């Protein structure tokens, strides 16, 4: 982004705020909106000319250039000791170093015209559950007025070289043609058990139907086996409903096993999502115009409450107050110093630990197993499903190749969501990984399984042409027109003054949790969006029919 100069930008007045937030990613926007809602004066900066940073939805060209800018250059490994900058009126100025969060960026193919019609998520695939706490926050805060959602039409699971619909509800199980009759009984019996557990947890149902302590601690996969669920159902429940990331049948990854409590929570979220909004067909919804709408909606909310927004305005250094032993100001790229009580920086820049006595870096999210997420954005001209255009696709561990350790999730979106021109489709894939190369291998395998690569580059072609189960007309795989693949770093937790990167999950649940913690550590006595506003009626029209 072009360096802003003092000449282009007027001086910001006032020059003192309760909170300065740099970066308009979702976490920062949420904090800014919550702080403004609690009456704090907020200055919200972003070095980019658009909102969202790592959470934005961009045109293919902007996406490519964003990735390349944030990828390490050849000689960018210089992490030399940082020197305190010259003294300022407030305190010691500490320079901010840019952080390179993307690597292994590969762009292939030509962006089809009209290329401006595409809005690609940087942090895809990502959706919201209808019963998501994020949805509640949007309803509670009023952000839902600035954003509209549509249903994801359904989920599919890839198994035995075929894509089949995930029977995730009573009706879907009834209609499903791939499950045997007995499997149908087992599946509903299990879902009923879960439902009874949920209602008994809510204090309504019978205590007897509650799944008790020792069960909750056992690995979820063991619990499913105890329920005598056949392998296929187990697979569906684990990876397509509970969204487990790692191979649950592999004893080596036992630290990555989902426990029963966690599993039941995911199922509970899923099942309470179905039917929450009358217009939503399944459990999942997606914002029209892309995920980038979410941070923008909260920024708007903050602006309504009086926050000041300045785009194209990077902060160059932080001002350290020796007496308070904390950062108490920001020096902007224009050279202006802003005083503030609290600072929140997005993860694009390294926030040096304040010295001489650094704040204890409080890790607020549970230690993530993986350090990276491999992501893939694709553009095609035909859908992976003959009738549906907005679908979630799960490629569970070992479905693509025996050594596949992680579940790969893909989300296909059509023009109905205004993320691409008519007759095009955008597909996001992602998988968690520790090793960038392995992550990319996983994505490549998924790409091979789902798409026809231009020039017949598919590694194994035996499955091409019969990707679907239950379809009488054999339809060939969609041809891949354009793709961008990259590996994104996950920031280890977040510190008092630095917010986390988009995680490798499908939903916003854990990000929202860390955001709430972050907010409470900034403002221990404030409420994170005051509850109490009746919002159920608004909830009815959160989705478009």
């Amino acid at each position, binding site marked *: 982004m072009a360096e802003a100069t003092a000449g282009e930008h007027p001086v910001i007045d006032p020059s003192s705020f309760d909170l300065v937030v740099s970066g308009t990613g979702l976490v920062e926007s949420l904090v800014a909106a919550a702080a403004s809602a609690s009456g704090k004066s907020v200055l919200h900066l972003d070095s980019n000319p658009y909102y969202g940073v790592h959470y934005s939805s961009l045109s293919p060209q902007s996406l490519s250039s964003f990735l390349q800018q944030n990828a390490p250059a050849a000689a960018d490994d210089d992490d030399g000791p940082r020197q305190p900058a010259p003294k300022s009126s407030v305190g010691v100025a500490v320079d901010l170093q840019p952080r390179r969060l993307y690597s292994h960026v590969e762009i292939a193919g030509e962006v089809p015209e009209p290329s401006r019609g595409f809005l690609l998520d940087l942090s895809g695939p990502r959706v919201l559950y209808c019963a998501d706490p994020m949805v509640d926050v949007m309803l509670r805060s009023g952000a839902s007025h600035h954003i509209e959602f549509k249903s994801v039409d359904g989920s599919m699971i890839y198994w035995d070289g075929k894509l089949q619909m995930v029977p995730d509800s*009573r*009706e879907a*199980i*009834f*209609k499903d043609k791939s499950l045997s*009759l*007995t499997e*149908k*009984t*087992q*599946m*509903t*019996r299990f879902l009923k058990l879960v439902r009874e557990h949920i209602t008994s947890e809510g204090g309504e149902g019978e205590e007897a139907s509650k799944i008790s302590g020792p069960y909750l601690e056992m690995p979820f996969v063991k619990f499913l086996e105890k329920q005598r669920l056949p392998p296929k159902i187990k697979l569906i429940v684990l990876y397509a409903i509970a969204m487990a990331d790692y191979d649950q049948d592999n004893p080596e990854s036992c630290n990555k096993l989902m426990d029963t409590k966690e599993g039941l929570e995911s199922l509970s979220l899923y099942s309470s999502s179905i039917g929450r909004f009358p217009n939503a067909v399944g459990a999942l919804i997606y914002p029209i115009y892309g995920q980038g709408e979410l941070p923008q909606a909260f920024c708007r909310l903050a602006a309504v409450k009086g926050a000041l927004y300045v785009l194209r305005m990077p902060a160059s250094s932080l001002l350290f107050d020796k007496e308070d032993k904390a950062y108490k100001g920001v020096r902007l790229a224009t050279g202006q110093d802003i005083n503030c009580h609290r600072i929140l920086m997005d993860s694009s820049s390294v926030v040096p630990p304040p010295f001489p006595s650094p704040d204890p870096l409080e890790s607020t999210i549970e230690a993530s197993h993986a350090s990276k997420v491999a992501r893939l954005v694709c553009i095609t001209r035909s859908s992976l499903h003959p009738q549906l255009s907005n679908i979630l696709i799960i490629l569970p561990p070992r479905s693509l190749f025996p050594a596949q350790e992680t579940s790969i999730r893909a989300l296909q979106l059509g023009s109905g969501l205004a993320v691409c021109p008519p007759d095009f489709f955008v597909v996001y894939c992602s998988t968690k990984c520790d090793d960038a190369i392995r992550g990319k291998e996983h994505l490549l395998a998924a790409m091979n399984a789902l798409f026809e690569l231009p020039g017949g580059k598919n590694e194994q072609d035996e499955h091409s042409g019969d990707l679907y189960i239950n379809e009488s007309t054999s339809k060939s795989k969609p041809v891949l027109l354009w793709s961008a693949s990259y590996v994104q770093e996950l920031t280890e937790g977040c510190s008092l003054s630095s917010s986390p990167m988009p995680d490798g999950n499908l939903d916003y649940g854990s990000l929202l949790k860390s955001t709430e913690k972050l907010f409470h550590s900034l403002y221990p006595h404030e409420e994170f969006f005051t509850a109490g506003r009746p919002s159920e009626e608004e909830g009815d029209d959160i989705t478009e029919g």
Partner: protein
Amino acid sequence: MHGRPRKTAKAEDLVASAAKAEKLRQLQSQLLRNHNDRIYNKEALEICSKLLEVNPEVYTAWNYRKLAVQSNLESCGDHEVVQSIVNQELKIAEIALRRNPKCYGAWQHRKWILNLGSDKADFDQEFRLLDQLLKADSRNFHGWNHRRFVVALKNVKEEEELNFTTEKINTNFSNYSAWHNRSVILSHLMKQNAPGFDPREKVLTEELEFIHQALFTDPDDQSGWFYHLWLLDQIIARDSPFLISSWPAHGTELILSSNTSVKDFQHFESTEYAQDIRALPIVLYFNQAVKGVNSTTVTVESIFTENVDLIWKPLSASNSVEAHCWVTYLNISERDCNSLEPYSIKVSFGNTQGLVSSDGCPLSYACQCEFSLKISPHSPGSCSKESNVNMVHWDNENFSRSEFLQIRPFLMSYQRQKIIANSELLISEWCSETLSREIMLFRKLISEINCKIAKLTLGRLLIARNFILSRGIQLTKNRTHFEETLQLYDDLIRLDPSHIGYYKDQRSLVLMDQVTSDEESLRKHCWLPKELSLTSAGQSVCLRLNKLSLTRIGFVERLLWVNVLDLSHNELQSVEGLEAMQLLSHLNLSHNKLSSMTALEPLRPMISLQALDISYNEIGAHSIDTKRYQCASSPLSHPAGTCGDVQGFEDFDPEEVKLYWDAILIFKHLHLTQLDVVGNPILNEPFSSLMIRLVPSLQWLDGRPAQQS
């Protein structure tokens, strides 16, 4: 709609409803005035509309509107005016239905208007409204009814409506209305052999496949099971009736005597009408209730009675014109028979039309039974009325098991007949295969899940398959799983105590089926009476079905040959079915749960009955029989209370008639020599004395010699 808790009204609601009531009263009185004065102008109709808007349940208002529409239509023939009236009325009904989608008056009005102006109504709009309504509440039966009405009015193709039900079921398969409509449409389409619905078997197989998805997805949801039951009924549809059993059986040789030691033949103790005339019953038992059994449809060739003189009577507790079982009596006069050679008797039917099932299906094939009758010389004394009869004791020590017992000839009495023209194979292979497949599936289901209705269905399937297989000639083959079926009903009795009566009845029928299924199992229940009084009377075998917890009797068609039957120590509340056992002379019903005299109604046509033990029941504990399976019992509605019978009461004291009318009706037809009533609340001195007067042949009452006072 469904599952919404009722809330108590708040104070402000009460105020609002009081205001509403006041407004309603005003409108209502205005309406009634207009109605009375036959004012049908615009203002008056407006008041009516307002009233219906507030409260669509005022039937008078709807009625008034109909009169107004009629009067206004008569007075003008203008096309546009008619159109506007139709539209206006449809609009009013729509407003009312939006207010209360289950308002009978509004639905009725809408129907009436549509019928009246079917050429004017906008049917697309009608379907749009119905779609909205059924989307809001997919189980509103008014909506479904109206849809059927509109479909018929507009002649929509039934196939389209079938697809509509599929669509609704796919949205939510817990929809009784949709499944019901599906069954209605399908039965019509199958009856017409509509293209695509022709081999009925194919359609039914596909439907089974479809319903299985619902049943296995949520076995606890009942709506699908109803449809499944309907499908099963279609599969085992019994179109044409046929004979399943007769007495005497085809090919048997009867000896009409009182005392003989020859055991290879069927013995027959006749009932005497007059000194020298004895009656030979001929019993025909069909697989379903039939009507039209008479001397033109059934021909009996014998030297004893002219066929045209024979009167066939239905044997059924409800005494209607149709019954499973029919009887006629052949009068054998000693004067006619001088020969020691057997007389041949032929019973044939099915050659002429007229013998049909209750829904009009003719017999599936013509049939003939041929048997012979040998008459041993009448030995004076043994059948004389004046002779003294020993008392019968039913105690265990009076019976002995005999391994050498030969019951084969008796068993032969059922399932033997000469089929004259076999039109088609009785058991459809598809049907028995389908049932077997269903049985396999539901066994699997109940191994997965503990589901009452699945168990019940499996029980029904097992019974149905046995029934289907028993239609065929091979009786004992493939007829197993009794234990499994009994276990299922035992489980159900435990799991679902609120329907215990039904389960016990079903269980009893299965048990009866098992006991009578073959020679071996039947032999276990056949005993030899030690007591001379029984053997001397010519009865050699007693069938003892005591202590089986039976609540009902079934499969009587296999027991037509039985003379002595012990049903004591069961839980019988009804003895329906016994009426077919025309040879029964000794019957023990003691220690059961018969609760009234009317429960003994089935015994009335049993002309051979001599000894009856009804001791230790609950007769008299309830004034009327509440356990009947068909119609309620009262002096007015009771089938026995026909005029002819009522006349018989003249001989009795009115007070006695009032108290014991039911006992009088039953016992005055019986020629009992022995009766045991002890241990019933009804028993007292007046009752005993009545019995002695009522049954002149009675020699033993409750173990004491009956003295004519």
